[in-house]
């Protein structure tokens, strides 16, 4: 559904040049939900805007929905839907009318567009506010309408740029349901997110992007497996420096990081590492307030690849 080779985009400023997307190779199969995970400024939006014909590419090749991005932008437009990060529905027009206009711009007839708009308002639970001006909508209503606008013409491929940022847990859960419904209906969804658990919960495949480059790609399971071994979280009482000094340089610990007064240890086998850790810290007189064993998460994958925690960089 999407294939890119060395996709690149630079922005030339007066003083500096930003390489927002620095040679991205992607292969997204039809019917998948594909997640694009990365911190602020990683190049997610820039990639999406290129793939949806909004932004000219600096170099590289891409086919989107079976059409060459550069040579057949009009065909690409006909087949995709795009929901921007900032949204697009703050207007003096009612939600229903925005939907109908959107459908008609894709060539739908008046009655067909009316019918589809009513359907969408129903599934997105917007019937109550469907006939109000969209500038009176709440954040969650606006976001759902944005998605509805993107879905109006039943695209094969839908781009969702951070569909759940700024939503409360309930609205987020509703959005997740909507994405799952789309997957069931056979629509390919390409979404970006800062949230690891979102990518984990929704996506068949994930690409992690940082500084305009893909640093890892695969199914959530594959990515987690890439980090062989386990993660042990050590919460010492008081400041973590003592514990860190004790554990640093131990052979069985492959990596050690500090996070909110706790230590995160990457080890080969958690079961044997835990007793060793307890013994070492006990011997040094460090009291523990918490100790836990985890399977690696996507956060660990991200950390492994970039040396930073996604949670620190996300807003």
């Amino acid at each position, binding site marked *: 559904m999407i294939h890119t080779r060395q996709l690149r985009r630079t922005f030339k400023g007066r003083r500096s040049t930003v390489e927002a997307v620095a040679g991205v190779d992607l292969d997204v199969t039809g019917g998948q939900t594909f997640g694009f995970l990365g911190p602020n400024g990683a190049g997610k939006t820039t990639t999406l805007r290129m793939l949806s*014909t909004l932004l000219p590419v600096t170099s590289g090749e891409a086919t989107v929905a079976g059409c060459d991005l550069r040579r057949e932008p009009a065909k690409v*437009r006909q087949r995709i839907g795009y929901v921007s990060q900032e949204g697009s529905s703050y207007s003096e027009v009612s939600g229903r009318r925005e939907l109908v206009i959107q459908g008609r711009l894709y060539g739908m007839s008046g009655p067909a567009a009316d019918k589809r708009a009513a359907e969408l308002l129903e599934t997105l639970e917007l019937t109550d506010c469907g006939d109000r001006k969209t500038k009176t909508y709440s954040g969650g209503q606006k976001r759902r309408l944005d998605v509805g606008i993107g879905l109006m013409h039943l695209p094969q491929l839908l781009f969702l740029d951070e569909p759940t940022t700024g939503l409360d847990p309930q609205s987020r859960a509703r959005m997740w349901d909507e994405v799952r419904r789309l997957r069931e209906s056979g629509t390919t969804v390409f979404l970006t997110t800062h949230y690891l658990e979102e990518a984990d919960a929704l996506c068949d495949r994930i690409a992690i992007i940082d500084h305009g480059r893909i640093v890892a790609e695969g199914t959530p399971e594959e990515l987690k497996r890439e980090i062989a071994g386990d993660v042990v979280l050590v919460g010492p009482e008081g400041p973590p420096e003592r514990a860190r000094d004790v554990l640093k340089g131990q052979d069985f610990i492959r990596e050690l990081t500090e996070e909110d007064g706790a230590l995160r240890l990457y080890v080969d086998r958690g079961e044997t590492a835990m007793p060793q850790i307890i013994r070492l810290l006990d011997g040094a007189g460090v009291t523990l307030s918490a100790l836990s064993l985890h399977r690696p998460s996507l956060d660990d994958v991200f950390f492994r690849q970039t040396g930073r925690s996604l949670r620190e960089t996300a807003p």
Partner: protein
Amino acid sequence: MKLLRDTWLMFVRYFLIFIGNPAWVIIGVIQPVLYLLLFAPLLKSLVHIPGFPPGGAYNVFVPGLLIQLGLFGASGVGFGLIDELRSGVIERFRVTPVSRLALLLGRAGRDLLTLIVQSIILLALAIPFGLKPTWIGVLVMLGLVALIGLGMSSLAYSAALALKDENSYAPLVFTLSLPLLLLSGVLLPLQLAPDWLQHIAQVNPLSYAVTAARDVFNGNGGSIDVVKGLAIMAALAVVGVAIGARRFSRAIA
């Protein structure tokens, strides 16, 4: 065909927005009415000065006022576009297969319609003051206003697309429209101006529209000045739309 359909869809959208908030048509009419009330009476004492065009104060002043309405009405339209650029609405249209020219024409069509409605209101209001309209005069007048509206609003949209920001758009528009207005002879006939000023005014296309409008209101429907005014305004409209179309298809490729 697609262009017509898309233009119509866009026109309807902007028309509905406009219907939802008609306050600013009234605001648009109030200003010229103030000119009618507070400025036109001054002209009455000037009517007998040599060089003042024939036809009475109101028949001289009202046509110019309509041209001014066209100029000012059209120069403000860019604000709406900047608003939509910011709110993502334009981007939303850009991902659809909509004809890029239709994005311009749909909006400009709405602007044109508002201008015509405002002009008719103003003409009607001027009659009690002493305007003596003729059918041909009104028709040519509306034609001129429509052409100015189309050309100027297209140019205004081009400027808005290029600048993308009210804080630079507003000064640009006001700085440009003031000399256009002063050099058009709207307020006082240019016949009263010294030669050098008349020469400069000849570069201003709007001065031809004003001359044409006055001529036709004073019973010279077929005069060469009227034909010239209409032709120049038609050229302005074509150039404006061409520039706008280029801007829209490039900035909104």
